[in-house]
């Protein structure tokens, strides 16, 4: 059996995740021994159409994106969403809170009708996604773990517990003790609590925990004197697509 063929595709994003993969310098040669990379715009020039694993970076935000991602899904056996934009819509989705016509006008002015766009969505909102590597940018260690699992026929696992769990394991002081509101308790771990460990609150870039208790989170943030508007902004930074702030349900 030949080496699995792997392709990377970028959609609406800053391409930081692909670039951060290039930072895997030490491992890149090992990786190239294990897979054939047939499509990777940032690094190679040939564009193969024959691949088994597709890594997708970026969110789906135009009718053209929708067409492209369907085509990729038809070809690939495994689709992996790379980074926040592909995983949850990410930063791009902030604009989903605005009127879409206004957004087009702000960006393209009078040419707005030439550039049709839709709300910025996660790849999984449009096609089936098999695995995700969260984060803004994605974490190289996690990328290697997921790739290693895929190549050895294991199911790649990413944490479903919160950033607090990693933050406690590092014995960091909690930012709430300083009156700073942190998204850690409701954000999916896996970054080794990168932000709180460096003194900054978590923005939620790895997406919300699957078992979210949004009302509890809102109550805590309110207690720490964030206004409803500020609370919304904390959620909207990366997680617009996953919070309907008006909805109120418990359990």
């Amino acid at each position, binding site marked *: 059996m030949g080496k699995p063929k792997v392709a990377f595709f970028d959609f609406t994003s800053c391409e930081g995740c692909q670039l951060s993969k290039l930072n895997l310098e030490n*491992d890149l040669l090992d990786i190239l021994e294990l897979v054939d990379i047939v499509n990777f715009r940032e690094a190679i020039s040939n564009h193969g159409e024959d691949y088994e694993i597709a890594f997708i970076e970026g969110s789906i935000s135009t009718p053209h994106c929708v067409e492209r991602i369907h085509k990729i899904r038809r070809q690939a056996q495994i689709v992996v969403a790379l980074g926040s934009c592909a995983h949850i819509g990410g930063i791009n989705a902030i604009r989903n809170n605005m009127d879409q016509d206004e957004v087009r006008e702000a960006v393209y002015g009078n040419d707005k009708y030439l550039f049709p766009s839709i709300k910025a969505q996660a790849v999984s909102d449009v096609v089936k996604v098999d695995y995700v590597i969260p984060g803004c940018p994605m974490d190289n260690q996690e990328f*290697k773990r997921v790739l290693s699992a895929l190549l050895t026929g294991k199911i790649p696992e990413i944490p479903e517990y919160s950033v607090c769990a990693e933050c406690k394991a590092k014995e*960091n002081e909690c930012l709430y003790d300083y009156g700073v509101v942190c998204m850690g308790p409701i954000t999916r771990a896996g970054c080794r609590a990168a932000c709180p460990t460096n003194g900054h609150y978590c923005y939620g870039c790895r997406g919300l925990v699957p078992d979210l208790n949004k*009302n509890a989170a809102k109550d805590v943030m309110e207690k720490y004197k964030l206004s409803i508007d500020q609370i919304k902004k904390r959620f909207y930074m990366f997680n617009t697509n996953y919070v309907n702030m008006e909805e109120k349900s418990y359990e």
Partner: protein
Amino acid sequence: MSSKAIAREKIPDAVSLLKAKYRVIAPVPKGKTFVFKKIGNPQEVVLDYNTTILPLKKFFLPPDEVIVKYNLKKREYQEPEIESEPTVFFGIHNYELQGILRLDYAFGTGVKDATYLKKRENNIFIGVTYTPDDYHFAESVGIPTDLKEGFDIFLTKYNGHYRVEALTDKGKNIVSQWSEFLEDCSYDGDPVVHFKNKLKQSVAGIREIFHGAYNHPVWKETSKKCYSCGTCNLVCPTCYCFDVSDEVVLGTDQGARSRRWDSCQILGFTEVAGGEAFREKRYDRVRHRMSRKFAYIMDDRDRPFCVGCGRCIRQCTADISITDVMNALL
């Protein structure tokens, strides 16, 4: 017998002397709070502290630990070498050591956990009295501040001094080496302490409270405030649950199996193969934690698996208090 005391300012000298022979672990400040740490400079040691972020368990059951390494192709495995460096744990509160004794029970009864037990060899514990803050409630779970069980030496604070009591042979040996720092002690009482946080009822009979409490409203009420972050378990001296995972290094046959602290408040904790979750509802998980502490497991002396350190209350960002929950039941 005339008892001995050490002045506060002589403590660093006493620690220096210990350092010559042992690894010394003691509380040191970290920002507004404290952590247990291997001591470099003896001046760092604090003896007036409320509690540390993580309990001593981190030295015996680290947050993340490789338990076996293997080679898939050669079908070989090795267990990592565990050193049990002679260690003095200095300035330890009694509930903290009670937490270790509960872990000893958990890891040493039935199937023995060699990885844990090995690290428990060659340990010396030097205790110190403390003033309870708003969260400690150790007295309510049968741990009054003068309980000295398990300590080799116990220091009782009075007037800028500490009375030094050697309680074991190992302790006596250390105290004899400290003689130049010691003076005669005039104090032979025990400080009077008040716990602000309490259970309404003491531990005797507490297990029975759970019999009729399965559908008590407190579980749902509490679960509305809880976002299942897991902090309360991770910081608990008597929580020992871990998750096991395997990782094979990309492109090699080398792999390692590790264990990592887990928490019963997290949904994935109760998930089994096939995706079934036993405690899908958050209130089931809240009830489980309390039941584990006060009903399901008692050590061989019938004491609960909560030592009243108050960490889970202090560090819960959602202000959930185990004493409030229990008091709603009592």
